[in-house]
């Protein structure tokens, strides 16, 4: 596994372009160029989707209004450009990745996992701690004062580490503690050490019911 998929490598200019597009402020000719570029670069599309997902989390929105348009137009552009031999393969891919024409399957699921883990712990504004550069990018994309304020007050990775260690010391391994740990795992994806599977989780243990202690 490589580095954390949230490590963005988009240029500021592209981020600004996307932001302008989503806001409906990008000139038509630039829109066409943007769409063409995205339609031809699956990896870049995945990065953009990550970028937009993080923006949604920071805004605590379900969806950015202009995002639907962007996604639809990229899909339309893709459809226009797919040659017949590729179309069948793409259709099969789309069937596997239901509702996610915008993302490549491999990266798309990674994004979903990360975002879901973040959402689970209610850390909807955690993103600033993930990557300062990316957080800055989001601030460029969404310049509302509330976003900047939210970013300024968010925990960085050091603070998350302290929260985890506090959990270690105080036995706070409940729902919050468990899932906060999950987020820490996500953030450190690139630091993890691959190990051999542990056989005891494979389905070899015989089913043995407990002694009946049901109080009802």
């Amino acid at each position, binding site marked *: *596994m490589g580095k954390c998929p949230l490590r963005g490598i988009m240029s500021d200019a592209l981020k600004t372009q996307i932001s302008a597009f989503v806001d409906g402020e990008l000139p038509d000719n630039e829109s066409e160029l943007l769409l063409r570029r995205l339609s031809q670069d699956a990896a870049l599309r995945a990065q953009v989707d990550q970028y937009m997902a993080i923006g949604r989390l920071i805004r605590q929105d379900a969806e950015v209004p202009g995002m639907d348009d962007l996604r639809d137009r990229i899909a339309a552009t893709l459809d226009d450009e797919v040659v017949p031999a590729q179309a069948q393969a793409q259709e099969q891919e789309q069937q596997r990745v239901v509702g996610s024409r915008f993302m490549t399957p491999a990266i798309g*699921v*990674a994004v*979903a*996992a990360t975002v*879901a*883990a973040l*959402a*689970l*712990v*209610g*850390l*909807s504004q*955690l993103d600033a701690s993930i990557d300062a550069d990316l957080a800055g990018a989001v601030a460029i994309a969404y310049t509302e004062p509330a976003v900047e304020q939210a970013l300024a*007050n*968010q*925990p*960085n990775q*050091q*603070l*998350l580490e*302290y*929260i985890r*260690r*506090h959990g270690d*010391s*105080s*036995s*706070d*391994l*409940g*729902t*919050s503690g*468990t899932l*906060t*740990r*999950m987020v820490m*795992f996500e953030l450190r994806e690139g*630091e*993890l*050490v*691959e*190990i*051999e*599977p*542990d056989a005891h*989780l*494979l*389905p070899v*243990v*015989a*089913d043995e*019911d*407990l*002694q*009946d*202690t*049901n*109080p*009802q």
Partner: protein
Amino acid sequence: MSRKINYSTRASLTTALVFAVFSADGLAQSSPAEWLDRMSDSVSVMSYEGTVIRRQNGTSDTLKVARKIVDGVINERLTTQEGNGLEIIRVGNEVHCILPDKQTVLVEEWNNQSTLFSALPTSDVRYAAQYDVSLVREDRVAGRSAVMLAIRPHDAFRFGHRIWLDQKTAFPLKTQLLDVNGDIIEQVKFAEIRFGSKVSQNVLMPSVSIESFTWYKEPARYRQVDIDTSWNSVDIPPGFRTMSTKTEIESATESSVTHIVYSDGLADVSVFITQEDDKGLTGASTLGTSNSYGTQLGGFQITVVGKVPASTVARIATSMQQR
């Protein structure tokens, strides 16, 4: 690594005691302290399977939880019902986080007896002078008769709790964490629960095939050494006392952090002190139900973290001094 926990004997004895002692009208017959004691035993020894709904910060999650002690080893599974289908499976001290959509298993070791899903105060609260503990009323939760127990702080430096305990087993069916205004900031509630023989070993296994998954383990990030520290809060809120003082040495950098834990018997607060750098928190931050406050003093970064009101971490952080 030993996954064997000496639970068998205690579990069977205590389970028997739990069911022998409890009658239907426990509210009238037992004191709050007795209920808390029984709650602790019940949480430790009971096997169960159920659906938990957790609400926090205006959002809710649904979790499937199951717990069973097999040959003295705690087996637990927690499965999210939304999002990526995250599963967390515990076998003794090993915890496996399974991410089906990433085809990944992440392994962590917990030297801790806490239950996976629990967000509970422990029975130690009865020793905490800063709280009143009282039985409030009878109620119904998850289709079962329950008694509601309230833990009310005497001041605004800590959160309050409400716990709904099963009448027959003292198992906590619902918990609430309350802020200083009495507003609920977190609720964990069983929508349905089955005890004992209803729990099959199958529900403790992964629900997806993980044979082809890639397994990872996080390397040890730090090691701890007990120390006597010269740091202390000179204006600690009433009831908090020092529980531990350690130096934590980072594996990667060999840099050290002084970690002091304060507790009032129910709420814990951690103070982290390190050399000042540009990564340190300044001012307040909130993450879930945890509040943090950071400040700088004499070239040191002081960061305080705890599931307590923001004013508590701020007061502790700004009152830290070196003797």
